[in-house]
């Protein structure tokens, strides 16, 4: 299968602080690919590089067999959509207006929409189940509703790849599942490649084809959820004790972090690797 994204020897530093070190990986076309790792492991930076927002990296990234720097901004926006972390700040645009913004890379400078743009926006609204919100203002929506509107906007872009930065953070359970289901359906029905950064390992394990585990800007492991979500991998990366069991739905690994008081009762050290880093 052809790769959608190929990253080779990615390095990135903010001043003296190195964020990514020699990171290489591939994302296959039509794959649901989730990047997990502790805070500060370089996940968000990686996503910004893939989105073409941060261009001060070394190494190479290819999107759909073409080097990323060879894309103009508009070209890139037609192949790749980004759903950034949900910001608290909003402006009173209507849901319709926000969706049509997703058509910006396909429209002229003034963003005057055609019938086709409207049709695509309507389809995207139905697909994400926000049609009933179309005339509401963004600042009147709940966080979960807004996140679905942003997903709909990304769908409007008609991209080959969608990047999402912790799309389920700060959402309630129902909205978390909705967002993940939507992405799964998008992959299923339209063949879109999904690259997601997530903190929720259990959720990620249920949806991802493959997981990549990052720590300190390097790849700890990459592979199927079963291969990646092992207690050795997680404890080594996150530095806390976890239990890994089977998800009651079957087939998926599920982790349970272990509270300190259980460890003291068992007489073991809280830190799984007291000697190392």
């Amino acid at each position, binding site marked *: 299968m052809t790769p959608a994204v190929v990253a080779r020897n990615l390095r990135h530093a903010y001043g003296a602080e190195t964020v990514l070190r020699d990171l290489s990986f591939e994302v296959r076309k039509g794959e649901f690919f989730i990047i997990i790792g502790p805070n500060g492991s370089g996940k968000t930076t990686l996503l910004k590089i893939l*989105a073409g927002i941060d261009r001060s990296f070394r190494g190479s990234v290819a999107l759909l067999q073409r080097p990323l720097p060879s894309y103009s901004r508009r070209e890139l926006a037609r192949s790749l959509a980004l759903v950034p972390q949900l910001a608290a700040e909003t402006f009173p645009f209507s849901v319709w207006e926000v969706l049509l913004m997703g058509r910006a890379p396909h429209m002229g400078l003034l963003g005057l929409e055609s019938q086709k743009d409207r049709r695509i926006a309507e389809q995207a609204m139905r697909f994400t189940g926000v049609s009933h919100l179309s005339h509401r203002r963004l600042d009147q929506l709940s966080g979960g509703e807004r996140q679905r509107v942003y997903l709909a906007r990304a769908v409007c872009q008609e991209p080959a790849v969608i990047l999402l930065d912790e799309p389920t953070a700060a959402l309630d359970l129902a909205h978390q599942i909705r967002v993940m289901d939507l992405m799964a359906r998008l992959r299923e029905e339209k063949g879109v490649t999904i690259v997601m950064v997530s903190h929720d390992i259990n959720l990620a394990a249920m949806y991802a084809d493959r997981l990549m585990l990052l720590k300190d800007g390097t790849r700890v492991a990459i592979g199927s959820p079963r291969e990646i979500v092992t207690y050795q991998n997680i404890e080594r990366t996150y530095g806390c004790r976890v239990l890994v069991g089977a998800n009651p739905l079957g087939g998926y690994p599920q982790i349970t972090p272990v509270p300190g008081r259980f460890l003291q009762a068992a007489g073991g050290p809280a830190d799984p690797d007291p000697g190392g880093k």
Partner: protein
Amino acid sequence: MSPGPQPVLRRLLLVSLPLLLALLTASFLGLGFGVTGSGLRAIWEALLALDSANLVQQTIVWRIRLPRVLMAAEVGATLSLGGLVFQALLRNPLAEPYILGISGGSAVGAISGILLGLSRFPGVSATAFAGSMATLALVVVLSSGRQILKKDTLLLAGVMVNAFCSAMILFLISLTQDSRLHNIIFWLMGDLSLTDMGQVRLLALLLAPCFLLAFLLSHAMNLLLMGKETAMALGVNIKLVTMTLLVATSFMISATVAQCGLLGFVGLVMPHLLRLLLGPDHRILVPACILGGATYMVGCDLLARIVPRHGELPVGVITAMIGAPLFIFLLRRSGR
């Protein structure tokens, strides 16, 4: 099935026509009233060049009031559009050329030009532009290391630069002893009284491309409001758009400051009022601010001419006296 919003162009028309009508009405009244009151009928006569209109009236209307009304419209449109653009770029409803010190910087430049005995154009305009660009650069540098448009630091830097500019202005004034002093002070309060058609035409020539640029980038401003990263991911070259808009706005602000001095609050009040009425779409707001700002300034200038029993007020006094309370009211309405 939701029909969606009306197409942008139709909304634009629906908004622009009433505003245009308001502007024409205000301009008509502006031509009709003044220190030497002549009443509406005389205006018709002068406008239509009827025989019964005497020469003095014709001269007053065409030579004195018309350029003044046009100048007021140009200045009001510029200040209000400038406020809108800055508020979009900084994603901050309090941003305005006046508050960010851009106007103050142009004023320092302009006064230096006046003191050096330069002509209003190109001399004073050029020094005003230099002053505004210098303050813009200073504000941007002060407020950032990496991120150009961080909100609060930029405003804070603007306030400081503005304070510094005020001190510079007072310093320059205190150095001045001769008759230029009165000129400078009246100009500082915002002055439209010394206008001729030549200046009006020249300013229109300078402003038109800036207005056009702002309209062409209005959709990009919408996208910028959704956040820097989102805008980039939607294909906006935000560095280019931001720099173009900052420079064009500073240029048109300094061009008007060089002509008419400091006129506060227009850039705050009009964009706020229109956003409250029309929503956040800049493709609508840019033309609306141009027309609305023009109307507001023509109206203020009219008041400045007819309120005092003798002589007239500097129009800057009127814009601030109406604008400041109105702005506070709008702030409370929008709940921010």
